[in-house]
């Protein structure tokens, strides 16, 4: 096959060598020209720098004298210097006053282009100012002839081109011969390679030898033989590969069938697992809810495992007993019982889990629970019980419940009943005794009348007690829901109560100090009148020695700054000790222990309940022998505010505020 010259290695090598040589020769010639230009330029500049000051000095005086003929003569003589093409002098206004070698009237050339060999004509134009003592006198301009330099450069350039051309031709011829000698055997190798490429894998052997190309031919022959052997081996391997491929296809079909079966089974398992996960989630949710319930429960729970050791104790148990889960976790029954008993009062200690298990078998629900009393972390009454479990992991559950409040309520009820029975028994005993006297003993009509009066009086006392008890019970039950709340003027109410009040015989009616200022509260008139009557009644009863009773309306301010009104009753009676004052609002408490002063012991309790259900409070100050001052404080009715809702429970009495008499 015949290739284009540039497609062959030989052609490219020759081309590359010639190109490199061309570049180097171009650089050589170019550099020579550059050096010539720089050297000549420097020489021209130096010459100009030497000429200009000398000429300038010679021209100063004739220019100052306007002696242009002398200037012209100087220029003419100066142009004789070799290499100066022309000279000209302009005055300070730029007019040409003298010139030599330059046509008259023709503008002077521009000197700004500097030194260049490419100008036409070849000339270096230089300008130099002429000045004396700072006064510009004119300008000297001259041109240096660069013709010789340009000729030298052209000669250098043309000779350089000639030498470079010859050099290139010789190099090309020499390289062509060398390339032909080197690549002759390579051509045979190329032909053999092309035969291999066309499919003839074992071409005729090429020439071999000891030089590089001969060794390349030997290597090619070896490679050719090896390729033939490899082709034969590849054919055999191809047949074996075809057999293996058929076998693999059969195995693949079998695996596909197995895969389908396994996929179906796997689907069922996945569905079952999804159901299990759903069930587990539900179970976790349930467990979570149960944990929340247990943690929120005010009752305490302790779970024991099959070995009788504490497995779990909730927050409620810690709140009730003060024993945290970490303190009881892992304790056996005995240790747990001992720990819990350590927090109990000796007279009502924890009986132990075995005793509780026995109680759990009782048929009566109440007997299944045992009350114990804790002294730590606080004084508490606690009900405990055990519930046996059928679970495999929990054997029994101990529960504890704080029944302190219920227990206290029970105690107060019992105490109240005891007080009430005691108070009722006294007049009842009189009634029973005097009625029996009437039945069994005959007596004069006067005596009968006297006994009947006693029976009547005692009955009246019983009725009073029962009425006041009913009042108190009603107030307790209703908690003010039956109050008829309305705006009422306390002054008017106090005036009416004072007018209707049955003053004991021989006593003066209460002295009123109610003032004229509006004094409206929202309240139940009847209840407030009842409370005022009670404290007026006490004022008269507890001042047996006489003395005036004063009923006043006072204004004050609550702790929160809200205005309030007070109905104040002041007596000058027996007075009370601080201990008596502290208990005066207790039910059935009576300051008089002699029995000479009638009363049920419920009046002040009723007063306290009524006032507190109106959002106020009762205030009492007393000293023995000096009398007592009772003030019923009530909040002032707002202008258009709704009535205060009756307090569901008696509010804690605010600190007493200083009352001020309206017209004191």
């Amino acid at each position, binding site marked *: 096959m015949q290739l284009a010259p540039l497609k062959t290695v030989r052609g490219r090598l020759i081309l590359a060598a010639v190109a490199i040589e061309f570049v180097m020769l171009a650089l050589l010639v170019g550099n020579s020209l550059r050096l010539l230009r720089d050297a000549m330029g420097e020489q021209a500049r130096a010459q100009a720098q030497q000429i200009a000051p000398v000429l300038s000095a010679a021209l*100063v*005086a004739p220019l*100052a*004298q*306007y002696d242009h003929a*002398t200037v012209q003569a100087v220029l003419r003589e100066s142009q004789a210097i070799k290499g100066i093409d022309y000279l000209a002098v302009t005055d300070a*206004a730029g007019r040409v006053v003298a010139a030599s070698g330059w046509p008259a009237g023709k503008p002077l050339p521009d000197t700004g282009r500097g030194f260049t060999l490419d100008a036409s004509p070849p000339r270096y134009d230089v300008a130099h100012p002429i000045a*004396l*003592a700072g*006064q510009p006198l004119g300008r000297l301009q001259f041109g240096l002839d660069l013709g010789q330099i340009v000729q030298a450069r052209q000669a250098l350039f043309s000779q350089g081109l000639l030498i470079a051309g010859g050099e290139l031709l010789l190099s090309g011829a020499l390289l062509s011969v060398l390339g032909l000698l080197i690549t002759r055997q390579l051509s045979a190798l190329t032909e053999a390679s092309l035969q291999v490429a066309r499919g003839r894998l074992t071409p005729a052997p090429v020439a071999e030898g000891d030089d590089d190309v001969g060794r390349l031919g030997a290597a090619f022959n070896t490679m050719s033989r090896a390729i033939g052997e490899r082709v034969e081996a590849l054919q055999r391997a191809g047949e074996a590969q075809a057999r293996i491929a058929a076998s693999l296809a059969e195995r693949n079909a079998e695996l596909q069938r197995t895969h389908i079966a396994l996929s179906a089974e796997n689907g069922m398992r996945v569905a079952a697992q999804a159901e299990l996960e759903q069930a587990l989630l539900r179970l976790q949710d349930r467990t979570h809810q149960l944990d929340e319930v247990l943690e929120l429960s005010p009752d305490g729970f302790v779970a024991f495992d099959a070995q009788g050791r504490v497995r779990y104790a909730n927050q409620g148990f810690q709140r009730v007993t003060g024993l945290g889960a970490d303190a009881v976790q892992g304790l056996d029954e005995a240790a747990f019982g001992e720990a819990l008993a350590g927090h109990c009062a000796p007279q009502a200690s924890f009986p132990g889990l075995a005793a509780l298990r026995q109680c759990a078998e009782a048929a009566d629900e109440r007997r299944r629970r045992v009350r114990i009393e804790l002294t730590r972390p606080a004084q508490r009454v606690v009900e405990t019980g055990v519930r046996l479990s059928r679970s495999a992991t929990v054997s029994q559950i101990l529960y504890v419940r704080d029944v302190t409040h219920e227990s206290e309520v029970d105690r107060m009820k019992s105490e109240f009943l005891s007080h009430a029975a005691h108070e009722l028994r006294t007049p009842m005993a009189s009634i029973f005794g005097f009625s029996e006297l009437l039945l069994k003993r005959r007596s004069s009509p006067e005596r009968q009348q006297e006994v009947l009066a006693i029976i009547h009086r005692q009955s009246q006392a019983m009725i009073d007690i029962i009425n006041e008890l009913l009042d108190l019970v009603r107030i307790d039950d209703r908690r003010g829901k039956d109050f008829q709340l309305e705006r009422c003027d306390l002054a008017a109410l106090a005036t009416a109560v004072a007018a209707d009040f049955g003053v004991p015989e021989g006593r003066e009616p209460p002295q009123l100090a109610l003032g004229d200022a509006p004094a409206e509260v929202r309240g139940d008139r009847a209840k407030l009148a009842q409370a005022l009557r009670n404290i007026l009644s006490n004022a008269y009863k507890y001042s047996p020695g006489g003395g005036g009773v004063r009923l006043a309306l006072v204004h004050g301010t609550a702790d929160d700054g809200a205005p309030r009104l007070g109905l104040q009753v002041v007596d000058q009676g027996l007075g009370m000790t601080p201990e008596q004052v502290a208990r005066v609002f207790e039910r059935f408490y009576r300051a008089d222990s002699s029995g000479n002063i009638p009363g049920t012991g419920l009046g002040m309790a009723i007063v306290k309940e009524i006032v507190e259900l109106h959002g106020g409070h009762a205030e009492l100050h007393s000293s023995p022998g000096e009398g007592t001052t009772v003030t019923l404080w009530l909040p002032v009715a707002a202008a258009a505010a709704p009535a205060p809702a009756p307090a569901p429970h008696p509010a804690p009495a605010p600190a007493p505020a200083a009352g001020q008499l309206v017209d004191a």
Partner: protein
Amino acid sequence: MSRTRRRTLALLALLPAWAAAAGPAALPAAPAAAPLRIAVAPHTSARVIVEMYQPLRAHLEHALGQRVEVITAPDFTAFARRAMAQDYDLAITTGHQARLLQTDAGYRPLLTYKADFRALAVVAGKSPHHSARDLAGSTVIGLSPASLVTIWGQHWLHRNAVPDATMRYVSASDSVGHLVLKGEGSAGFMSLANFQGLPPALREQLRVLDESTSMSGRVYVLNARHAARQEAVSAALWAFAGTPEGRAYFDRYKLGGYRALEPRELFAMEPYANEVRLALKAPPAK
């Protein structure tokens, strides 16, 4: 041809004339850029004159707001000829030329230096010449024929009836002294100021044979075309005398400052001015 086309062609024909008329007017900077020429009579070398008057030049440029150049002439005759041809704006020259320029060219006298101006007749110190008559038949050296000291010298020779004296003219006053010492002339004429400005070694070898009375030395005269600016120029000159540069200038050249001209001071120069007038009428030397 329509009337409109004729009008257009007429306007086009007028364009070159209009351009020629508008050309100079289109160069407004040219008149303003023309420098004020101060021409100093060539009483010494051009290089010395230009250097000497640089402080005045700088002051006037600043005061008048105009470029100023200091020039001179190759000799007194050329100087007088150019001044008469109105080449100068402000001339600083000797009294007799100032008188000539005043009467014949319309220049306006402004002021002069305070320093005394006298003309001297000098001889070599060792020479046998001790009176004017000793100079008979010899060569006497002077500056330009139009210079005041030379004219005074010629009048001095005439008044002293010196017979057959031959005048030789040179360009610089120091040349006069050198030539006298070398024996090129029996005597020489120079101004007192130039004599005092000679190198001491040279001056000590010379002897003053006679001296003139006080004359107007260098007088400032203003060209009549600047009559409107006379007060401004005069004020600028007087102001220069008050500046540190001006005082230094007067001290250096022993000029003493400026003074106003006496009423008939220049009139006294008339005989000398007439000599110049006659010289200018004579054909220039070849």
